[in-house]
């Protein structure tokens, strides 16, 4: 049984329409996705803006209610439980956000921020609580812990704040952590430090990670499996090396091609696939395959039928008529 099972998950956001308008339009943020995350996976969820990856992350954690579909964590439907049971589940899944400046309450000291999870779940108190919190800071490389505890978030750099955010996520010893672009706002050298930290922690605490990002370079080095989303749907999923060496979906090919490589000889000799146009509207979706308006390999079927996600090779799924004859 997978740790996290997502079935036909949909999330539509209403578009505020005029007072006298009859139609109720929606933003199809997530439009029917199926996903399984196994224990100890580091799953990369990639896509560009408007693909629905951030919304998916929130839905999986139960921070948003779906319009349709289910999310099962350790076999339990997370939207069908309340109260004490929901609280118990909360302990098992946590989140790390992109913006280290926005994810820590500026009015709270680090001590208060880190004590909160223990306090809410009545895990520890007094001296024991102090010890646990200091240990957390040690785990994320912020030593001496006592220095950090009584300061406020604005006194620290982006990298340090992100470590604090990671410490908070680890406090309840969860099994599953959703990391939403955890390093995108950080400097290059700090990025590497935080990724290395996350990798070490996930090994040490046997974590399962859902790593949401738009940066494919990070995915290659960090994740073991990848899922590519476009306009609310999954277009391809595979093991990481397989995805980069033999991408099937034209969108996957184009984003791999568009990612510059820090090596002038390689990147300049590379023939770049440049997509035409912009992302279509999330409200009025293209008919047929959502990608056909920009796809260099589109043909007539693509404008009419929406392709299904099929398993083309072992562990490699794709939703594209090119591979679905």
């Amino acid at each position, binding site marked *: 049984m997978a740790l996290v099972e997502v079935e036909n998950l949909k999330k539509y956001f209403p578009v505020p329409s005029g007072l006298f308008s009859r139609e109720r339009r929606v933003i199809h943020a997530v439009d029917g996705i199926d996903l399984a995350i196994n224990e100890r996976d580091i799953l990369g969820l990639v896509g560009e803006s408007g693909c629905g990856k951030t919304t998916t992350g*929130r839905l999986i*954690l139960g*921070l948003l209610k779906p319009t349709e579909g289910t999310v099962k964590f350790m076999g339990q439907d997370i939207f069908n439980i309340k109260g004490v049971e929901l*609280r118990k589940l*909360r*302990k098992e*899944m*946590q*989140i790390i*956000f992109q*913006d280290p*400046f*926005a*994810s*820590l*309450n*500026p*009015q*709270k*000291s680090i*001590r208060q921020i880190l004590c*909160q*999870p223990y306090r*809410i*779940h009545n895990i520890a108190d*007094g*001296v024991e609580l*102090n*010890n646990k919190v200091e240990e957390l800071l040690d785990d994320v490389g912020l030593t001496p812990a*006592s220095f950090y*505890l*009584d*300061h*406020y978030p*604005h*006194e*620290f*750099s982006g990298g340090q704040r992100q470590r604090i*955010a990671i410490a*908070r996520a680890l*406090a*309840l010893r969860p099994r599953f952590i959703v990391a939403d672009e955890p390093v995108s706002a950080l400097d290059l050298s700090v990025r590497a430090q935080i990724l290395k930290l996350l990798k070490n922690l996930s090994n040490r605490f046997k974590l399962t990670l859902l790593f949401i990002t738009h940066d494919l370079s990070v995915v290659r080095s960090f994740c073991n499996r990848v899922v590519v989303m476009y306009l609310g749907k999954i277009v391809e999923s595979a093991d990481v090396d397989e995805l980069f060496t033999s991408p099937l979906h034209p969108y996957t090919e184009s984003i791999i091609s568009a990612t510059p490589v820090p090596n002038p000889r390689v990147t300049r000799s590379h023939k770049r696939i440049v997509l035409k146009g912009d992302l279509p509207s999330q409200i009025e979706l293209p008919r047929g395959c959502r990608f056909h308006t920009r796809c260099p390999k589109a043909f007539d079927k693509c404008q009419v039928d929406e392709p299904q996600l099929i398993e083309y090779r072992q562990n490699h799924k794709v939703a594209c008529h090119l591979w679905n004859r």
Partner: protein
Amino acid sequence: MNRSIQANKCKVDSKFKRFSEFWRRYRKNRPAIIGLIIVAFFTTVALFAPQIAPYDPFHIAVAQVFESPNSMFPMGSDALGRDVFSGVVYGARVSLLIGFSAALTSAIIGIIIGSVAGYLGGVMDALLMRITEIFQTIPAFFMALVLVTLFGSSVWNVIILLGLLSWPRTARLIRAEFLSLKEREFVEASRAVGASSAEIIFGEIMPNALAPVIVDASMEVGRAILIEAGLSFLGLGDLNQISWGMMLNNAQPYLRTAWWLAVFPGACIFILVLSLNLVGDGLNDAFNPRLKER
């Protein structure tokens, strides 16, 4: 050292540190410091009015009417021989009491309504906002006149009245803060950790939402003082208390002949309200760096 004592000591230290950083930022603003000193000065005068004022402000001395400022009456005397200086000193009491109490009342009402509207959204928000709008569209002064006529004009009535007039402004401010803060990531993080709604409202959002309200409240004190002065000027204030507005009212017929009757109370109103505004500006600037990144 016992670790929990150490932990508590650190908590106290860090609160002190926060305040001293806030104070450092406030200090940078010269006018704000001057404003604060002046407000503190008036507050002291108000607190020690009985010790400072040489006479009972209502004490009539027929033999000493319309004396211009001299050694016995430093600010002169009025039509009934009452000492203007004593009036000003006791008047400070009334102004500050009404000003601070009214601001506090409107802040409390506004915070409760605004935070509920902002956090819950939807129907509750719409309902509360309509109520807020109703209160806002009533012209303040006319409402004041009506209520004072109906319920009498004691100091406490005036305070409640002023509180009822200005809470919509605070409610709007808090609601706006709640609307933007509740989507912030640190709030989501709290939810993810398992915090209850109550904890999120009071523990996470409220401390961040209060800054603009505190600034507005300090300005509100000044506004309340002005309205009170206006009411007293029209003879609608508490007739048992001497207030600057009342003194201005009494001074009306004698503006040309006995300038001191209007100038001193008028100047006090002006200086106090200006100082309160300066303090408000200072607080505003001191609060804001916190909300920005380093």
